[in-house]
């Protein structure tokens, strides 16, 4: 079924651009018509997909306020807040929407700062594994080890896994903060 659908899609593209010729062509009618019907259905299905657009913005903390706009004079120690806004501009729901953010180089994650209506996990191994509370095993010189929560400064990625589908037209948002090293 999958293979058939793919074949018809390819045909459909031809049909749209060269439709007149195709319809007028003297052909063995029955299978071609069948293909045409399938192709139309495929065009409709193709447009019916989720399509989430993302927009990223940054603000800088200034006392109790957040300054937005272009930041070309950040200083070591400054706290930046990244805001991710998304909208499903498609016409089907986006399921298992998973948003991933690298903690930018020369910044460190600010503990407890990630928010959003999603399950939030963190990586300390450049995105290989994620956990709500990454742990590190520290080895003492005598060979014994100890497991303890990884410091927020060691986080490399934040991930938001939205439990609910992003319905067509629906918005989503996610926030986190970093500190400039």
């Amino acid at each position: 079924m999958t293979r058939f659908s793919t074949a018809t899609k390819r045909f459909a593209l031809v049909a749209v651009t060269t439709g007149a010729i195709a319809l007028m062509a003297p052909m063995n009618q029955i299978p071609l018509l069948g293909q045409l019907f399938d192709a139309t259905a495929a065009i409709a299905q193709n447009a019916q997909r989720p399509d989430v657009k993302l927009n990223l913005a940054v603000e800088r903390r200034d006392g109790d306020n957040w300054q937005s706009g272009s930041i070309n004079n950040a200083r070591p120690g400054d706290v930046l807040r990244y805001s991710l806004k998304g909208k499903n501009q498609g016409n089907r729901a986006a399921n298992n929407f998973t948003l991933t953010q690298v903690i930018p180089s020369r910044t460190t994650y600010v503990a407890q700062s990630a928010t959003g209506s999603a399950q939030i996990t963190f990586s300390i191994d450049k995105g290989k594994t994620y956990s709500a509370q990454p742990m590190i095993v520290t080895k003492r010189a005598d060979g014994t080890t100890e497991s303890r929560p990884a410091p927020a400064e060691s986080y490399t990625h934040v991930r938001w896994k939205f439990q609910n589908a992003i319905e067509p037209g629906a918005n989503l948002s996610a926030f986190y903060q970093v500190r400039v090293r």
Partner: protein
Amino acid sequence: MNGKTSSVFQRLLAATLLVSGITALAAPAFADGTAAGTSIDNTATATYDNPDDPTKPFNATSNTVKVTVAEVAGITVTPLSTIDVNGGNVLPNDIVNYEFKVTNVGNDTTEFFIPGTPTVAGPGAATVVQITGYIKPDGTRVDFPTAVAVPAGTTKTSAIPGLPAIPGSPVGVIPAGYAIIVNVPTTINNLAASGANVDVRLGNTGANDNLAGTQNQPNTATTATDKVRTVDYLSETGTTAGPVAEEKEAAALQTVKVGSLSQALATVLKTRTSYVPNSVTSLADDVIGYGLALKVESAAPVGSTGITPGKLVGTAIKVDGATVNRVLVSDAIPVQTKLTAAADVTVPNTNWKAVYTTDALTVPAIAATWTSTFTASATRIGYIYDATVTPLAEGANITGFGFKVVTSGVPAASTTPVNILNIAQVFGQTKGNEGPTAPLVYDESGDQMPSNFNDDGSTNTSTTSLTPGSPVGNIPTGNPNATNDGIDNTNDNTGKGPGGEDNVITIALEGSILNGPKDVPGAVGPSDNNNDFTNRSTPVDPNTPPGGTIDPAAVNFVNSVNNPSGTATLSNVLIVPDTAAFTAATGETLPPDKTTVTLTYGGSTAIYTFDAALGNFVFTSGNPITVPALAPGQTINYTVSVDLPAGTPLSTDTLKGFSIPIYAFVDKDGDSRPDVDGTEPTQNRTIDRVYTGFLQLKKEARILDKDGATVLVPFTTDSAALAGKGAKDRFIEYRITYKNISIAPTGTGNTTLDAKNVAVIEDGVNGGNSWAKDTDANNIIDTSHKMGSVSVTYGGPASVTYSPSGEQTGTTAATDVTKYVHKPGVIIQPQDAGTFVFRRKIN
């Protein structure tokens, strides 16, 4: 007269457990900030399901947001060293180099303004300020071939004639993280009095007191000629705008006392660098690697006074049949181990040579006979340096000493965990103050303090008086004793307490478990690692009379459990209070009935109540504490809260602490109790011991006749006996004895109770005392102070203060002493005792 003696017992003692803080120079705000001009780019990505093909999810990518980092100026000025050029004591006409470190703690290149005119206070004079080199961010010091004088006036570094460039940077431009070394050579006046301070200041910021307010402050007066400040480097690339309006300034002050001792400050550091357990069934083949380092400090320890750092040179030792002067780093080979192989012995560089001795450890390292030939049967390994030509200068940091030992002395069949203890020593002398009667420079490993200085910067009187000619018996042998030395628990030279601290590793077979005080799961108590202990005390209201009872507040403990195996995980480790196989020793007892013990670990809490009739702890509520899996080498901490019931007697009366035996064990038969018949071999016990007060105070009195010598009633607590002999012009002498009754240090790694900041307060008109009152209203107080009658065990005369106005005697409260306060000034260690005695004449 009875009124004068009725209050023989008064609890007038305040023991507070405070550790005084040391105000260190503030760290720079951001010594290694992101470089100016750096662009921080950020893009978000997302994935979501493709409803048509789950194997090919859709991706979404956001726009990219750029943040650019601006240039931020930053500067610190810190004392680097004070060096008496000709060594020895700082004397009139000596030249002392006051070195300062001026660091660019901003995030871009900068220039500095350095004042060309020295600022000296006290009997000293300087004519020039020099830049002598620079220090890289990794701490490497580079000295210029010759010192460069800073001209007077407003001169930024790029305009200083003859200043060499820091490689990779234009002349006078200091990269972020780099520092320049500024020296002010100062000549001590020929008439300078001994004890006078000679201060040299670089910069002028804030209170000029070396505290945080003097570092990296906004530059207030941009044209002042006495400020050390940043000057934006205008030609730098990568950034457009410099921090012109935000230049920073800093200052530092260094003081040298005339006549002060130039003293080499040596710090020997020791860590375990490797551990290989080898056979899982034997403790006799474990291999432990050690690494050593030696530092010669360039600044006197915080809290010390009158010390000028000096250079380290050798002291006389016997090597290969000759007596030579060498700096000696020595390490006693731990008991039950021997050196592995010559190939495992490393030296920092070719200037250092490894040496060995087989002399017994009773022979101190500087009296031993050393050979440069490796022998596995060595009792000590040493590293020697010939400082005849090049002394080890202030700031030297020598790393790379290493050796390995194998635990071949542990009996092959041994299954009991074994503690391997070790401490390193360094011996030398100060350049310019050498010879058999000059002081020995001596330090022990385990902490960061040089030359065995105490943590508060005071000198360790037992080792500072040593000389190479001291009787051999007075030189520390370096044979570790954790009870006396203390432990560097975290294997990183952060031990506390006098002298050095032992490095301890516990080796154990698979299937063992270690349960002990926080961070020391392998602690060993009076006899073995099943009676290691943590002693803590409840607060006690100072007005609680002897013989009284209290309802103590709960006391919290943190214990550590460790799986010592290198390979095998322990599953379902249960932690419970249990009296199995527990027999109270002298100085301890099981807790009173209805004592609650609350264990907490990983979000679970289990409460047990002691049932005296049953003789054991009964699970009351919560969830039993189980550690599902303890990985090889893993250590976890759990807490124990002990709440003794109302009506608990004072430990200072019973002389006993209340012991809570806590087991960590693998419960094979599932009965939640540790079986001690050998069927549950994976088990270990630690004791959490609560004292209801541990500093006992006893007040006695005696009556002396008018001559002040004839004892009419000897020291007693019997008020009636005293009252019968009290008469005008006789003397009553009070003796207050204080004693720390808690169990004395023993074994390895136990936590004992020290009484710190002890103060004995004797108030003659309060707290039940009447000896300074006028109870018969004849306008004469009932007793008068006898001048010179006070004696103390600790602290000497200076430890006693007299109210209302010093030591005096009279017949009114204003002209006599109505209150004595005695502060012994020493830590009263377990089982230590002291007295405070004063005499009053009966009026």
